[in-house]
């Protein structure tokens, strides 16, 4: 019964959403079967497609975890996108400016660490605003997104722009600051296995430590948590540091493992899609893995669908939106029950 409840809703949501999307495609005049074949082919059809899907899942997974832990604590961190951007910015600054010529084994950890710290501080800013001034974190994290995205735009037009100053982008990261590719692959960087280990660590943290218990208690009943001696302010700060750190790490990994440099539009909205990932996973860290893979596959398959079946890739966004609607709609308890 529990298993059915845990998996039935998300899987059902995905199936219903896909069916509705197929009907939409047919109405648009596209042959649904061909479109789906192209989509699946582009997502998992060959090893390159598969690698592409995995690489795109990585930021979704990290930020999906970030969103899930913060929501579990009753903190609505909508700022994953901004935290990703400041993480990428910090990693790039460290790798191209401060420690560009550091010996191997120094620049990379520093860059990744800087990304994490920057993301954590970005989240921490929202926490401080909430704890000291009572500013809703929903509002502050959304606004901090704009600042981060525009900050990156400024950086790649200004202080961090490449030396030749041709394009609004940073210099390429030195090889010592990049995540090496795993042998025998074209796109899988060395960070990926670690990323896929994190859900387990977070599960452990949430369900097997005192810190996780405090965090969930605050999310479920701040009042009772306070009477038990838990400081809700401290938990708010902690969870936003953690959440921001994860999203910042996602940004650093994008730069060090995938793009090799910083530019505007680094993220196709990973920070927002990750909210859907977390909701589809019903805020469970392990559930984030399939949810991130699913949205990663959609993202990597949509290009192929557009190319092969001439279906506009925005229909994929429709599918994403439908999945969110259905999973959230099914997951919420009925009113009054």
């Amino acid at each position: 019964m529990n298993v059915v409840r845990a998996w039935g809703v998300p899987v059902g949501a995905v199936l219903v959403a896909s069916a509705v999307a197929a009907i939409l495609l047919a109405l648009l005049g596209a042959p649904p079967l061909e479109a789906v074949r192209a989509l699946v082919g582009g997502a998992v059809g060959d090893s390159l497609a598969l690698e592409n899907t995995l690489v795109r899942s990585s930021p979704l997974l990290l930020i999906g975890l970030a969103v899930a832990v913060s929501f579990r604590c009753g903190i609505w961190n909508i700022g994953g996108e901004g935290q990703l951007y400041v993480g990428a910015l910090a990693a790039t600054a460290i790798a191209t400016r401060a420690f560009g010529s550091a010996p191997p084994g120094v620049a990379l950890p520093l860059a990744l660490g800087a990304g994490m710290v920057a993301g954590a501080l970005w989240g921490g800013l929202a926490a401080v605003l909430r704890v000291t001034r009572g500013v809703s974190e929903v509002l502050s994290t959304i606004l901090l997104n704009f600042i981060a995205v525009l900050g990156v735009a400024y950086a790649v037009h200004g202080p961090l722009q490449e030396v030749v100053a041709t394009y609004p982008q940073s210099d390429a990261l030195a090889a010592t600051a990049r995540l090496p590719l795993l042998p025998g692959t074209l796109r899988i960087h060395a960070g990926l296995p670690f990323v896929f280990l994190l859900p387990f660590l977070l599960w452990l943290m949430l369900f097997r430590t005192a810190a996780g218990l405090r965090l969930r208690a605050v999310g479920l009943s701040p009042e009772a948590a306070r009477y038990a001696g838990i400081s809700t302010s401290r938990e708010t700060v902690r969870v936003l540091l953690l959440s921001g750190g994860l999203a910042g790490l996602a940004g650093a990994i994008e730069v060090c493992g995938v793009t090799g440099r910083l530019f505007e539009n680094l993220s196709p909205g990973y920070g927002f899609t990750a909210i859907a990932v977390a909701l589809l996973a019903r805020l469970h860290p392990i559930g984030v893995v399939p949810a991130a893979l699913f949205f990663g596959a959609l993202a990597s398959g949509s290009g192929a669908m557009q190319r092969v079946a001439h279906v506009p890739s925005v229909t994929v966004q429709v599918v994403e939106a439908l999945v969110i609607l259905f999973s959230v709609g099914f997951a919420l308890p009925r009113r009054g029950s």
Partner: protein
Amino acid sequence: MLRVELRDVGKRFGSTLALDGADLEIEAGEIHALLGENGAGKTTLVRTLYGLVRPDRGEIRLDGRETRIDSPAHALSQGIGLVHQHAVLAPALTVAENLALGEKDSLWLPPARLAQRARTLLEAYDLALDPETPAGELPVAHQQRLGIVRALARGARLLILDEPTAVLAPSEVDSLLELLVRLRGEGRTVVFISHKLEEVTAVCDRVTVLRKGRTVATRPVAGLDPRELGRWMVGVDPPPPGEPPGGEVGSVALRAVGLQAGLLRGVDLTVGEGEIFAVAGIDGNGQAPLEEVFAGIRSLEAGKIEVLRSPLALIPGDRQRTGLVLGLAAEENLILVEAARGGSEPLFRWGLLRRSRLRESVRETFSRFDVQGEPAQPAATLSGGNQQRLLLARALRERPAVLVAINPTRGLDLAATGFIREELRRAARSGTAVLLVSTDLDEVLELGNRIAVLFRGRLYPVEAGRRTRERIGELMLGQVG
């Protein structure tokens, strides 16, 4: 004119008998006070009259005719209106819209007409309010007044007010009482629930006293002896059996000096090792801030609390809201206080929860405190008695030197109540200093080595030689000296 009689009304909620054959007789055109301890059944009784509670037995007569009232709408159509302490308004709607709510035709009126109507009504009751203000932005006193005006606008000839003054400042109380007198002058009838004796003597014509779901007396207020009222409220039965834990009282474990916070106006107390110090009193006299300062979630405006022996454990007063995290498993609730302190040996090692230790320890605690339920079951799904046992277990599990317990048996059946009281006594016997705050007079008499009454934010000790219901009843109503 409306004359109301309720006869032999009974109502049971699960294991609590809220009404046990209560009678109430209200003459047209009087202000009738309803008095009684917390839990006596006052609210339940007036809610049956307003169609919010369906009684198990008994009858309601309006002007002599037996009537079944099955909804507030029906009550209103009979001319009966009830205003809650916090008037139930739609906070986002304006004053004018709130006044129009529930009237079939008026919501279709254009806003200007609505506002005009509202202005007339408000003026008639001296309520200087802007009809365009959202009701949620009004101060509590105005919201309450608006609730009253709305009930009158819907044609209430009998107005029931359930503890309206508990949320008001003294000057607001005066103006509310003036309004009641004025309504009486207009020929309306008022039922007024209050715990404040001088409000009752100031404006009421007659008073009915309820105790444990039964009507004890109905009398004219004029010439009434307050001592007698107190006696009716709390009864004259001998104190309940079961002796207070008369062991050796050791050195002071908990001391509070001059506590001021919210309603608290300088509370001093000490609790010795092995002693139960019981604080009686009617809710709303400072119990809430007292609990909050001991829970450490409210800062003191003045005074200090010295915890001379630790650890200090707390049993919060509302098991569903402040006691348990209902969405967490029972076992997780049990170790929440330990987790709040950081999580240490033996339940945690290197920050990780040791599941086998936990299971073992939880089983032990569950059987020791007789908690019926699965450790992994969400606390929400436990019965009230088991939820309370869980809270008791959480507090006593680590053998606290000081225990603060707020209404630890509220709403429980006899078995659970007896069990919890015995555990508190046992804790005291083993040397724990217990501060018990309870609105249940039996509990206070049964458990307290020493008793004091909290009245309007001050503590009045019950003299050792005058440990009777009468004396405590007097103090609860403010008859000091």
